[in-house]
């Protein structure tokens, strides 16, 4: 039994950048968003790395990465991501921001997945982040799954253990630091990943060169998608009020750091 793993994931602004909401011509946006460097959405990143590991452990499996974003920015992103794990890219040219409507996003991504040549839906595992660091709507993956007719859906997953018969065991995060352990008879299923258990793989240029054979054509052939804010009217947007209070102290014991944080939380 092998899997066809489709990972949905796109870019978000580099979290180190100054993120300043503003009203753009087509709705709310971040100041200078197009010009800010971007990274792979960390939640989607976990999903991708888990997918690649799963594919490596289950012979005959294959990974696609389906990304909705401005293709020029996706291209930059691929120069780093494509070196980490092997995948085929399916690019959809459209916006990728924190103010997009999850319904429209899901529609565009589901359409792109539907169009993947060679994808066997009975083997499909639909992976993605259980949330996004640009907008924590936490519904996009479910919406895509529903559109594709996938009813077995798992959210905030940290582990997926495949069995020889094609079934797999899944650990989902639930409240109070507990896990819900489920057994799924097999694909198709939607898995919205939390952090998983894998570190970010180092860059491997050989993998990158291999991936580039599909990445560059995929970017060139990326179909435009009309994705916007849907029916949502944003009356006001602002970054959460917070004060960055940075303390640089070297060699501080863990207990002392914990005590510091507790004291800060207590105000």
């Amino acid at each position: 039994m092998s899997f066809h793993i489709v990972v949905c994931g796109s870019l978000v602004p580099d979290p180190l950048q100054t993120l300043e909401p503003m009203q753009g011509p087509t709705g709310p946006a971040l100041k200078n968003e197009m010009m800010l460097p971007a990274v792979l959405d960390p939640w989607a990143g976990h999903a991708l790395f888990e997918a690649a590991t799963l594919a490596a452990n289950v012979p005959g499996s294959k990974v696609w990465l389906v990304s909705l974003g401005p293709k020029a920015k996706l291209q930059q992103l691929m120069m780093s991501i494509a070196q980490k794990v092997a995948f085929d890219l399916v690019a959809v040219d459209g916006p990728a921001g924190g103010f997009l409507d999850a319904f429209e996003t899901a529609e565009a991504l589901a359409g792109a997945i539907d169009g993947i040549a060679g994808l066997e839906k009975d083997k499909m595992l639909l992976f993605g982040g259980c949330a996004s660091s640009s907008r924590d709507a936490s519904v996009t993956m479910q919406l895509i799954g529903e559109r594709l007719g996938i009813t077995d859906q798992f959210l905030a997953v940290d582990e997926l253990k495949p069995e020889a018969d094609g079934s797999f065991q899944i650990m989902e995060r639930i409240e109070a630091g507990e896990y819900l352990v489920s057994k799924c008879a097999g694909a198709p299923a939607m898995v919205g990943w939390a952090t998983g258990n894998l570190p970010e793989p180092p860059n491997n240029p050989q993998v990158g060169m291999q991936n580039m054979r599909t990445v560059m054509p995929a970017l060139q052939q990326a179909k435009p998608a009309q994705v916007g804010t849907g029916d949502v009217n944003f009356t006001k947007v602002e970054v959460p009020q917070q004060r960055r209070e940075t303390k640089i102290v070297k060699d501080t014991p863990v207990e002392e750091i914990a005590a510091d944080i507790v004291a800060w939380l207590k105000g």
Partner: protein
Amino acid sequence: MESNDAAKLMSTLPGDDIRQIMWRYSDRFELQMVVQSSRQVARSVVARCVADGVRNSHEWNDRKHSILEAFDQAGLTQVFMDPQDGGFIDGPKNLALALVAFELSWVDGGAATSSLASNLGLSPIHEKGTDAQKRHYMKACTPPQPGEDREIMRAAFALTEPLPFIGVDTGVISGKATVADMDGDEPMLQIEKRGRFITNMGFADLVTAAVDTDDERLKTSCMVILEEGDEGLFDRGVPTQKLVHQLSSTRDPVFSLKVPASRIIGGYTVQDGVIVPNFSHAEVIEAVFRRTRVPVGLMSSAKLLSAVEPIIRYHRQRFRGNAAVQPGTPRFESGLQMKEDCLQRLVDVWAAGEAGTSLGFATCRLLDTYDEIEKEKERIFAEEGIKGRAQLKAFRKINKDALELLALRDQSEGERDDARMQELEADPLVQFALQDSLANVLCPAGKLWNTGAGANTMREAVSLMGGYGVTEDCPGFLGQKWMDMQLEATYEGPESVQRRQLSITMTSELFLAQFRQWIDGLRKIASTRPGTGACALARAMELWLWTLEHLQSAKDADGKALWNTNRHGVCYPMADALCWLISVYYQILDVMELAEKGEMNPVVAEGLEGSLNFFSDLAHTQVARAAGEAGRLCAELVYGYNAHPDWDGEGCFDAATLEDLESVMPGFGSQATDVVEGDGSHAAKAGPCAKSCKSGFVRLRAKMDVCLTGSRMAKDRAATAIGQLMIPEALDYPL
């Protein structure tokens, strides 16, 4: 031209999209991946080492070794290799290697040096090794792939020797090779070599060493490959007590080893019982150093550009935390950036970084095409059996053809002989001659200017951080970078070596013909994009050319010829002046590239106008600085070797004569400024004012000064842009 108030400003720090266009690798995804990999290693493993104080030890240790492992894992070790040896980049790799060095040096020069030194160790084999040597050692130095059961070999390059301090004269090598045994299948050599300040020696198990012959059965000097397991002594020696680049390993090794003659790089023949190496050590080194010096210059420029973001952040946040400075006040939001001086000095740092980077990457791109053409030249000469001095003779004709081609390129269509032009354009030897003459100037210029002028500028950058700049905690490690640049100005050929080379190569007819074409090109650029300062630069280049021609024929006050390559007081400042000019020349070309291609990239297009304004203003600022430096140096040389007139000589009037002349020509006396009175008294000064008889120089200098018009307005605009530039919340590598 927009007023300073209306000009659109650059809104964010330039990202990869802009740099890929400016430095011409937007269509090379393998290079873009290399940049990402290098950056990731630099800003994680390397930066953590620096932040943790790993530089504070001269010994090679596990933390430092982890950097090499990170290089291997991220594919940086393989960048140097060809695909058949486990690499992933086909063709010349000068630009690729330079990008790696640039990214690593953005954080730490020592890490970059470790990477470069491994390549340097392998370069003799790569450039001149036999096929068997290349196959064996390139593969051995590539990280093992999954399934391979072997340890990676690491290389060092041993040229420098204790003499008794440190140094090398490529003509005289103290390391010796003798023939130990001629009887077996393969002659055996005994190598005696003491190295000094040899990079990578803490871990290298493969050393390419330069040795002279000390045996009549060995014809010439050569370079040999030494391995740790060879019979005899392979002593790594003591670590060098470096104040800089401590993340690289430097030691003083001692080798006394018996090795087969097959280790002679490039192979050998046996003629009448004498081993004749196919390449002397000097031939190997010449091929190696031309390429490896360029990334060193880029390392220094990377440091300047890396200083920009930490300085902006420091300036803006300078007063935050002070109870009296409330959020929302200009003092809180802008900090020291309320003061014009902070902004304008940062403009200088940034502009110098841009100029050096532009020159460095332009040189790498040239070398990438040059590598191919050089191979073709060698193939043609080998086919025709042209060797040694015969090649020099052949080049007399080829150089003429190259000059003819340049002249044809200058002519307009219809006026020129197109068939002849096509013939010459297609001639690889002509192309080689043109590129060779450029490479011979650009390589030493980048090494000299980027490191030397760069280190001086870095001092300014450090000072912009106040006392913080000279602490280990300074964000961006600016203090360490400043010190490191002093080494970069020295290793792989100190400044005097680069000036010496330039003083010869910059007078080549072929180079000068191309230099004149640059001047014409700059005027054309100025007509479409005057804000770059291209016109002023063209004028400064004319002034430099005039000065060169003058110096080549003039004599000093003692009657000695001024132009002589051993007269360093004349030639070297001219080399320095040239470097200022050509670095900013390439900076302008990069701005033009952005202007031409920026619109095609939607990410760049969004802020293109602001970016172009800013980079044009930086270039204009740098042009003014470069023209000023060149003008000063040229003026010193044109006038400085003349004797100052004295009160006894020509150039002044005695009062009585002046009185007589006044009676004949009323008003004449008022024109005379230097008068000796009857009692011998005169104005209190050195002598009559020196008069310029160099009207060409005076005219050009005056024009050049006037051409600086607008350059300070450009600097104001650039400073304003920096004042509102959006920067990240925090540096993307640890402190």
